[in-house]
C-alpha cells in the first residue's frame, strides 16, 4: 500500500515530470499563459496519459511481448497515444469549443509531448505492474498539471510585471521554470526515505 503511495508521491513531487525530469516542456511553455487553459490542458493530459499508460501496458504485455517484438515498443506506443489524443480532441471539440480553440495546436501536440511517450516507456523501464503503471501515469500527469497550473498562476501575475524588454515573454518564463525546478529539488531524497 505504502509503496503505491510512494509511486504517486514520487511521480507528483520528487520526480515531477516537468520540473525534475524536464519532459513535456512544449505544452508547459505554450499553454501556461492563462490559468483557465492550463487547467484544461492539465485535465486533457491527465486523461490521455493515464489512459495511455494503461493501454500501452496492456499492449506491451499481451501483444508485443508474447509476439516477441518488444523492439516495436516505441512505435506501437506512439500509435496508441496518437489515437487516444485524436479521440480526446474530438471529445473536447464537442464539449468545449473554446478550450479546443485555446489548446489549439497543443492538443494534437500531446501526441508528441515527450512526457506522454516518456512515462509509458519509464513504466517499462521501472518494471511497473499494471496498477503501478496506471498510478505512475496518473501521478506523473498530476505532477504535470500541478506544475502547469502553478506556472500559469505565476505567469498571469508576471503579465503585469515590469520585466526588462529582452526578457519579456518566454525568456522570463524560462527563468521562472528554472527557479521552480530549483524549488522542486528540495524534495530530493524524499522518495528514498523508508
Amino acid at each position, binding site marked *: 500500500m505504502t509503496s503505491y503511495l510512494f509511486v504517486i508521491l514520487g511521480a507528483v513531487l520528487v520526480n515531477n515530470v516537468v520540473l525534475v525530469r524536464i519532459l513535456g516542456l512544449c505544452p508547459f511553455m505554450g*499553454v501556461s*499563459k*492563462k490559468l483557465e*487553459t492550463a487547467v484544461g490542458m492539465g485535465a486533457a493530459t491527465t486523461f490521455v496519459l493515464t489512459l495511455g499508460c494503461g493501454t500501452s501496458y496492456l*499492449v506491451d504485455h499481451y*501483444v*508485443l511481448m508474447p*509476439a*516477441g*517484438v518488444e523492439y*516495436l515498443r516505441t*512505435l*506501437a506506443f506512439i*500509435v*496508441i497515444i496518437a*489515437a487516444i489524443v*485524436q*479521440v480526446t480532441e*474530438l*471529445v473536447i*471539440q*464537442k464539449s468545449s*469549443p*473554446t478550450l479546443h*480553440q*485555446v*489548446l*489549439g495546436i497543443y492538443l494534437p501536440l500531446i501526441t508528441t509531448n515527450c512526457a506522454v511517450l516518456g512515462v509509458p516507456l519509464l513504466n517499462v523501464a521501472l518494471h511497473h505492474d499494471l496498477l503501478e503503471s496506471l498510478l505512475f501515469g496518473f501521478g506523473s500527469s498530476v505532477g504535470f498539471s500541478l506544475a502547469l497550473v502553478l506556472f500559469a498562476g505565476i505567469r498571469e501575475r508576471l503579465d503585469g510585471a515590469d520585466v526588462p524588454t529582452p526578457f519579456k515573454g518566454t525568456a522570463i518564463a524560462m527563468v521562472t521554470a528554472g527557479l521552480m525546478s530549483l524549488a522542486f529539488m528540495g524534495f530530493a531524497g524524499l522518495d528514498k526515505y523508508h
Partner: protein
Amino acid sequence: MLTALLVMTGIALVLGALLGFASIKFKVEGDPLVDKIDAILPQTQCGQCGFPGCRPYATAIAGGEAEINQCPPGGEEGIRKLADLLGREFKPLSEEHGVEKPKSVAVIDEQTCIGCTLCIQACPVDAIVGAAKQLHTIIASECTGCELCLAPCPVDCIVMEPIAETVDTWKWRYPVFEIKAAA
C-alpha cells in the same frame, strides 16, 4: 518480421475503427467560436479586413484563413483580445489593411447633398436616413465611422469628423509611471 507487420496492422485496424467511431459520435455542427470572435470585432462592417463585414472576417479567423491583425477600427486593443481568446501571439496591426484612426462619424454637408441615395445604399448599418431627391442625414449615434459612404457620393458632400469628448465620455488618463531620475 511477419509478426511485427501483423501486430502493427492489428493495432492500426483497432485504433482506426475506434477513431472512425469517435468522429461520427462527436461530430460538431457549426462553430460557436465565430460568435465569440464576432463579439470582439467592432461591427463597423467597413470591410477594411478584406472581408465583406465583421462576421465573414470572424468566420475566416475561426477557420484559420485570416490573421487576427486585419481590423484597423478594432485597433491594438481588439488584436489583443483576439490573441487572448485564441491563444495566439499578439501582432501589430497589418499595414496593408489600414491604420487605427480616432473614432469619427460621417457628416453630410446639407448644402451640397443632392439626395441621390447612393450613400444610403452604401451604409451597412442604416445610419443614413432620407429618400430620393430628399436631403440625407446621418444619425451620428448610429454611425460606425466605416467611411463606406464617402466613395459613392457623387458630389463629395460627406466628410468624417472625429467625435468630440464631452464631460460624460471623458476618460481619466493613465497615471504616468514616472520616477524622476533626479529624485
